[in-house]
């Protein structure tokens, strides 16, 4: 039973692997050209699984910044995980901390969205969430290894549209999560706020993309909670 749920999660998470692998390759190449050993690059991806956070940490240190500055930067960029973990946690009521740990470890934008969408149709279980996390982890780590060890011979993944894998996934997830009119309204509000705030930010106020997502998503959810009651 649990095995079947796990494999269902693996197949659900397969598009995440397609999206992560090329980005992982990019991280691997960048880490090695910044003077890391390939082993360090792979270990970092395997233990942190934090796309943007890893790129930021790497670039702060490569640019001559201190270790503490790099750690603060990665903490700030990945603060959205606090929001995601809180959002998903009511579904994990009664699950022991030891069983929550691997789910927390593999929590990313994409695993969060896939698991929530699956939960909405009533199918998600801790085992399926573990499957989603495992295949996402594999894509990220394998991509990093490919980039780090094979930096020279990896071709250009943009030839086959790799840079659209994540946007495609988010598009499908928008539709999966928009289950009623309220959700459509909240999604459109979030989208509009993000475009508007990004336009404003070019006028001086600098907002980093992951902050833009956190701020506009929280604002749109708040609008939803105020406008729509139970």
């Amino acid at each position, binding site marked *: 039973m649990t095995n079947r749920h796990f494999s269902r999660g693996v197949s659900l998470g397969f598009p995440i692997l397609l999206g992560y692998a090329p980005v992982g390759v990019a991280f691997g190449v960048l880490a090695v050209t910044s003077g890391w050993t390939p082993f360090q690059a792979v270990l970092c991806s395997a233990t942190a699984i934090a796309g943007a956070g890893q790129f930021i940490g790497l670039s702060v240190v490569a640019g001559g910044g201190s270790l503490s500055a790099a750690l603060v930067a990665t903490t700030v960029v990945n603060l959205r995980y606090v929001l995601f973990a809180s959002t998903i946690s009511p579904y994990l009521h009664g699950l022991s901390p030891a069983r929550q740990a691997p789910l927390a470890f593999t929590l990313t934008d994409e695993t969060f969205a896939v698991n929530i969408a699956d939960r909405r149709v009533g199918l998600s279980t801790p085992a399926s969430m573990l499957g989603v996390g495992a295949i996402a982890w594999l894509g990220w780590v394998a991509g990093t290894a490919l980039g780090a060890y094979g930096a020279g011979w990896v071709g250009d993944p943009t030839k086959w549209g790799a840079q659209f894998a994540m946007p495609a996934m988010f598009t499908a997830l928008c539709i999966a999560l928009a289950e009623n009119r309220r959700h459509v309204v909240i999604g459109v509000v*979030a989208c509009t706020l993000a475009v508007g705030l990004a336009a404003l930010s070019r006028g001086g106020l600098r907002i980093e993309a992951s902050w833009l997502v956190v701020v506009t998503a929280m604002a749109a959810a708040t609008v939803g909670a105020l406008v729509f009651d139970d």
Partner: protein
Amino acid sequence: MTSVSPSVVWGLIIGMAAINFAERFVPMALVSRLELPRPVLRWLSYVPIAVMGSLFATQVLMPRGEFLPPWSSPWVWAALLTGAVYYKTRSFLGATVAGMAGFVVLGKLLGT
């Protein structure tokens, strides 16, 4: 090649592993023990679609941080194709692969 010292790299690897796990695990373990009030649960239930809306905006409407005119953007047209395939098939994999293929073709037609 570069002057980044090995101890800084190791410090970063260990530090990032610890921080990223703590940011995910601590709120999950704490909040899952609480009985949350209904308004908070309702707010949380709106977070996923709001996050997806914002991510769609940053990734599809503003790829590389620039807002592109939608009618000439391969990102937007490929997203429409992806959305249509997902709506018809309810398959994330099918929609993602169709979107990637569409993006390659549209990129050639519209110029990326």
